[in-house]
Every structure is written in C-alpha cells, then in structure tokens.
C-alpha cells in the first residue's frame, strides 16, 4: 500500500513565502522545487493562522507542510486512518473515535479562537447584542424576522428591518459547529433537547455552506443572512459580528482579550495528567467571550518514522513558542504561558523512531 501525499483542497497557497512582499517569482520557484515534508488535514477554524505558520516555518527552516482545510471531521478521519501525519480539530475526539485510531493520539492545543455570530444586515451600524437563548431560537427558526421583539429588547433604540432571517450553517463535519452547538446546549434547554451538540447536527432551518469559507461567503452575499464563523474569517471579510451575553450577564464582543479571559479560569485548574480535551464555552469571568474554544493538533504518541516524527515534534515546539507570538496578529489568542510550557513537556512523551 503506497502512502501518497495529500495536499489541501481549499484555497490559498502559501507557496513558500506568504507575506505580501513575496508573491512573485521567488514564491513560484521555491514552490515548484522540492517535495513535501509533512501532511496534515482538518479544521478550517484555525486555517488562516496555520497557513501563516506553515509559510513562516518553511521560510525559517525549509520544511514544507501541506494542509487540507477540509473540516475537523475530515481531519479526525484522516489521522485515524493514518493518511496524514497530523490532524487538526476544534472538536476534541470522542472516546469511540480515539478507539478507532491506530494508536494513542495526543491532543495538543495550539491556540484559542472565537466563534462569532455574523450577519448581513446593512442597516445596522453597530454590533448587535444577542443572548444565547435568542441565538438558539434564531437557529431553530423560532425567531424568524430581524425586528422580532426579543432581538429588539436586547437592542433598545436600534432600527431593525422587517426582513426574514436567513440562517446559514455548516454542511460538513465541523469543529466550529461543535463549539457553537456546545455553547447553545449549555445556554438553551430547548437547543439541548433539540439539535444538541456535535460536529454535525440536524439543523431545523437554513442553508449549508462548506467550511468556514463557505459560510462566510454565503453570509456575505445574502442580505438578511446570519451564520457562525471563526473570528479571523469575519475580520478578513469585513463581516460584522454580534456581542454575546456571557455567563456574567455582560454583552461581550469577541476579541483576543475576551477569549483569553475565557480560557483563564479553566487553564489553571487543569490536572497534571489532563488530555487537554476541555471545553471553555460559556466560561465564567466578567470579560469572557462565551463562544471560545481551544483548537488542537492531533498526533500519534508513537511515531515509527523517525525522520517525520522528528520534523513533527520540531514543528510543534516551534508552534508553541514562535508560533504563539503570531497568534494575535490574526485575532487568535495565544495559549496561557503555563499551558505552553507544560505542553512542551507533553511533547517529550512522544516516542520517535523504531521500537516506538
């Protein structure tokens, strides 16, 4: 059985040298030379940051990493089947998914991000305030119009149009969906009894978009639409997003600080032998953004191929130190310091080479 290299299906080549100065010949020349060192697949949630990491890492160390941005569900599947060197997901693997893998898998958190509720209502000039139960009822179709009194109640003085709300959700197996529905399950009993949480749920209403990109695209082009995407996508496409009411009752806009605040409480309380599969939605804390999440890279604890294993570990160490420094440029929150150093130790438990 040949192992064939797999490469990203989606947009954006970071052909070795991805910053603005390098989109000319040097990029094309180096992109054409050389094979790929590592392959990965999975979440679209962190993709804007990962693509920057891979480009910078290639520039710094010359190691090329291909990443297929196909959604957390696809990432989990590919790493379980061993068709990629690492997976990426914002939905932690469930126990039965872990059981199906070829060996023990480590969840290495890389950064924190925010799932934002974005919308396309040109009449609005300021961000909308929304609460968890209102969001849940919008996405189940119970709230049908933008000028519904429950939305108006949260936004006094704001002129809301009388148009239909057009829901957009993910059509693929998505960690972003997992985070979003995790939050809704925590704050809305009717959502918990209904669609529940998962990478894929039964959506009572709405259009399906592929990946964070697809949802962003559909919201952007459809007046009256509402959807949930990662913060970086909203910012890169100039899409507005709502301030969500957190557990303390305050309406918080997603930002690096708000996400960091959400992680703060949980991060300190993690036990020594945690597997890092934690959820931080609806976190306590006055300034916490309630729909925040870790995103993980999934690697096998045993790496029989010593060359690849070494490269993988080296990349992860780089990500946890240098990579973290770039996170805020794309509005992702870096890991808490203590967590990053504990993860370096965790990386030491990866056995590389034969006999692994």
């Amino acid at each position, binding site marked *: 059985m040949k192992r064939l290299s797999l490469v990203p299906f989606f947009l954006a080549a970071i052909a070795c040298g991805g910053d603005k100065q390098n989109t000319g010949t040097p990029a094309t020349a180096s992109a054409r030379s050389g094979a790929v060192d590592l392959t990965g697949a999975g979440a679209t949630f962190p993709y804007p940051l990962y693509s920057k990491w891979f480009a910078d890492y290639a520039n710094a160390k010359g190691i090329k990493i291909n990443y297929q941005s196909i959604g957390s569900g*696809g990432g*989990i599947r590919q790493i379980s089947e061993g068709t990629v060197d690492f997976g990426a997901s914002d939905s932690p693997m469930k126990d039965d998914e872990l059981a199906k893998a070829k060996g023990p898998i480590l969840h290495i958190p890389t950064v924190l991000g925010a799932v934002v509720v974005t919308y396309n209502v040109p009449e609005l000039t300021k961000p909308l305030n929304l609460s968890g139960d209102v969001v849940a009822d919008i996405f189940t179709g119970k709230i049908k119009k933008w000028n519904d009194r429950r939305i108006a109640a949260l936004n006094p003085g704001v002129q809301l149009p009388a148009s239909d709300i*057009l829901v957009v959700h993910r*059509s*693929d197996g998505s960690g972003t969906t997992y985070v979003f529905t995790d939050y809704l399950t925590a704050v809305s009993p009717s959502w918990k009894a209904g669609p529940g949480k998962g990478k*894929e*749920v039964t959506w009572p209403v709405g*259009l399906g978009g*592929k990946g964070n990109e697809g949802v962003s695209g559909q919201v952007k082009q*459809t007046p009256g639409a509402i959807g949930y995407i990662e913060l970086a996508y909203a910012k890169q496409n100039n899409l507005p997003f709502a301030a969500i009411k957190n557990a303390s009752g305050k309406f918080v806009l997603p930002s690096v600080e708000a996400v960091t605040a959400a992680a703060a409480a949980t991060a300190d309380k993690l036990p020594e032998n945690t597997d890092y599969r934690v959820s931080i939605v609806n976190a306590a804390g006055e300034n916490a953004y309630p729909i925040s999440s870790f995103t993980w890279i999934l690697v096998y604890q045993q790496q029989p191929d010593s060359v690849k294993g070494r490269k993988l570990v080296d990349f992860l160490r780089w990500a946890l130190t240098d990579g973290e420094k770039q996170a805020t440029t794309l509005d992702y929150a870096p890991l808490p310091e203590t967590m990053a150093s504990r993860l370096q130790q965790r990386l030491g438990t990866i056995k590389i080479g034969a006999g692994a």
Partner: protein
Amino acid sequence: MEATTASVGSRRTTSAPDAPRLDLRALGDRAYQIAITSFAVAIPLLLVLIAVSIFAAAWPALTRSGLSFLTQSRWDVASGEFGAAPAIFGTVVSSAIALIIATPLALGVSIFLSEIAPGWLRQPVAFFVDLLAAVPSVVYGLWGIFVLIPILRDPVGPFLRDTLHLGGLPLFSGPNYGYSMLAAGVILAIMILPYIAAVTREVLRAVPRAQREAALALGATKWEMIRDAVIPYARSGIVGGIILGLGRALGETMAVTMVIGNRPEISASLFAPGYTMASLIANEFTEATNDLHLSALMAVGAVLFLVTLIVNAIARWLVWRVSRGPAP
C-alpha cells in the same frame, strides 16, 4: 480475398515458402480482430465495473434500511439516519422545473430553425444555442452564484411574491434565500436547452418534404402545417429529446451544488433550499467520517445510476426509432 492474396503471393515461388507468409498475415488479422474486440468489450466491462463498485459499496446501507431508504425523509449524519427521499425529491423537482422551462423554448427555437428562419439567421442562432452545451458546469455555477441568485433574490422573488400576489401559495412561501430550488431549476433549464433543441432539430429535419408540401397544398397555414404534418411525424423523436434532456438534468452536479442551498429537506416552496442526489454526493463524499455514511452516499449514487440509466435508455430508444428509420 485469401485466394487473391495467395495468388499474388505465389506468383514467384512454390507454395511452401508462401505458407509462413500466409500464417503471418493470418496472425496479423487475428491480432487485429482480438485487439478491436477487446476494446469493444471494454465498454460493457466498464459499465459492469461501475455498477458493481457502486452497488457493492452501497450494500451495507441498503441492507440496513431496505427499501425504506428511498422513502425516509431524514438525512441526518449526526444520528446515523440516512433517508434519501429529500435528495430524490430535489432531483425530481429541479429537473421538472428545468423541463417545464426548457421544453417550450427548445421546441420553439427548433421549429424556428428548421421551418421559419431565413437562411442567414439560421447559422448564428443554431451556433449560439449549440454552444450552450459547451459551457462547463462550473462556469454555469459561478454565473449562477453571482448573477442569477441576486436577480432571483431581488427583482424576481418580490415580483412573484408581492406584485403577482403569489406569496400565499405554498409554492412561493417561506423566506427567499436566493439559493433555492428555483435557482437550480433555471440553471438546469439553460443547460438542457441545447440538448433538447439539437435532437428536435434533427428529427424535424428528418420529416420528408412531401409531408410539408402535402399539408400546404391542402390549404394549411404555415403553423397548421407544422402542427399537423411535421410535429406528429417527429413526435416520438421529440419526446426522446425531452427525455434526453431530463436524463442530463437528473445527473447534473456542479452548477446545482453551487446554487441549491444544500439542505436535505423536502419543502413545497420554490424559494426553499434543497438537495439533489448528485449534489449530496459531491458535498459530503470527502467528509464522510464513518462507513455507514459513506455507504449511504454510495446508495444514493446507486439510485442515481439506475435512474439515469433507465431514463437515458428510454430516450435513446425513442430517438433511434425516428432518426435511424427503417435501416438497422
């Protein structure tokens, strides 16, 4: 033939040295026969392989639900329930819309081209209509997303709903996403138009002049001649062309995926998003994370395969009957 070549070959010498040369020729002929027969066999073989691969992979899902797979209306990946009814419904409805829009236009333009158009106009119009078939599906989809859907969302949707007051009908109810069954139907109509038109033109041309002249001689107006003498003669071919168009509409993937909204739900409204069998497979195939999901997708593929097989076979048979005529 062998006698001729043998007599040419044996001009110079006795028969013994000819024997090897004859064997070589026979060998060459045999090899050629085997070669082209094998290539011909490749076609049925390919179809068998396609059928086997799809049905074998679809087997787990089909045995699990049995025939209810076709009627169950929940396609829910999360809970493992796979009912193909929404996809089948979407395929049928979008194709039906496409046929309703495309058939009159195709018939009209074909009649125009074969009976009415002045000579100088014939070539360009035929050219433009035929060229529609050359446009790749993804380009239709691109145009659909950025041109057709905004048009359906703004001038057309409100026009149908408010100006014509059709909003009360279930057919036009619900929010107008733009991405809808209607959008899929319109794009499909444009895509199948050239196929129906091409077949219809050919069968109309096959109608003997005598038919037309007889009708006119009996005092028919031009339209009556077309309606009563030409079309009935070509009828089964025209129906064949329409069914051919249907066959293409059923299997069309990319353009539909890009405009239909990807929602596995049966809805009465034209404005609602939906799914077709082909776009369901296209969207979910690379992400099927468990074997049952994959098998269910293959089962949808199997249904699509069977349906298009039957429809195309009927279409071909009908068209053959008219255009091939009495010859074998």
